[in-house]
């Protein structure tokens, strides 16, 4: 069995929780453990929060895509925006790095996605938005 979905939503903070719920529900056919489900919710929360906080001055669009392959026991998600993009992706991936230190941002978002998921890829350049791809094997 394979499944997929595509979702557009505004970069409003209320959608951090909404996106977590959508991602968790989507994984259920793979019969994830509680920990695996928590891992997905946490990683999605990080990526969506990054877009809410950083992508736009004001509110813009966030797109969430999901793909599931029951035979391969994998789930993939993409969180994408059309915002200002990341100046230095390598720096952004470093633990504790943040462009908003005064906001009490921990700078751990990408580190958490990398740790909680099995694969992560971040694509961005200034002015071209951000695309975060992540994958988890749920056996």
């Amino acid at each position, binding site marked *: 069995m394979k499944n997929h979905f595509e979702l557009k939503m505004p970069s409003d903070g209320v959608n951090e929780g909404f996106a977590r719920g959508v991602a968790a529900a989507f994984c259920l056919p793979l019969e994830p453990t509680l*920990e695996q489900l928590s891992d997905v*919710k946490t990683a999605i929360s990080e990526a969506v929060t990054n877009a809410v906080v950083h992508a736009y001055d004001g509110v813009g669009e966030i797109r969430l895509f999901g793909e599931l392959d029951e035979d391969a026991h994998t789930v993939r998600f993409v969180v994408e925006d059309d915002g200002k993009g990341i100046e230095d992706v390598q720096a952004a991936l470093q633990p504790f790095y943040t462009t908003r230190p005064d906001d009490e941002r921990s700078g751990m978002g990408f580190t958490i996605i990398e740790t909680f998921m099995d694969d992560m890829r971040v694509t961005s350049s200034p002015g071209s938005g951000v695309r975060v791809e992540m994958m988890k094997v749920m056996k």
Partner: protein
Amino acid sequence: MGLEFKRRGKDLCLTLSGDLDEYTARSLKAEADRLIEARGFSTVTLDMGGVTFMDSTGLGFVLGRYKKLRGMRVEMLLKNVPPQVDKVFRTSGVYSLIPIVED
């Protein structure tokens, strides 16, 4: 995100409940700081028992309070950390700064 507080002797215990994410944390900082700035205690214990979800925003909130309290020479402690929250804390190494206490 609910915040309740209780004073037990020289300890101020802050009990959090619900999801702790960027959206719910927005009002939490002001509320927590108001309680902290009242002073008159030597420790602040964060009871995480009712936290149903936390991401790195929660980490930022905890570390922000830790820095503030350190400036006031008040010790911070964590209590009743649920598994999902514990995993986020362990990933960031927060326990090297803030110990967990048993009840």
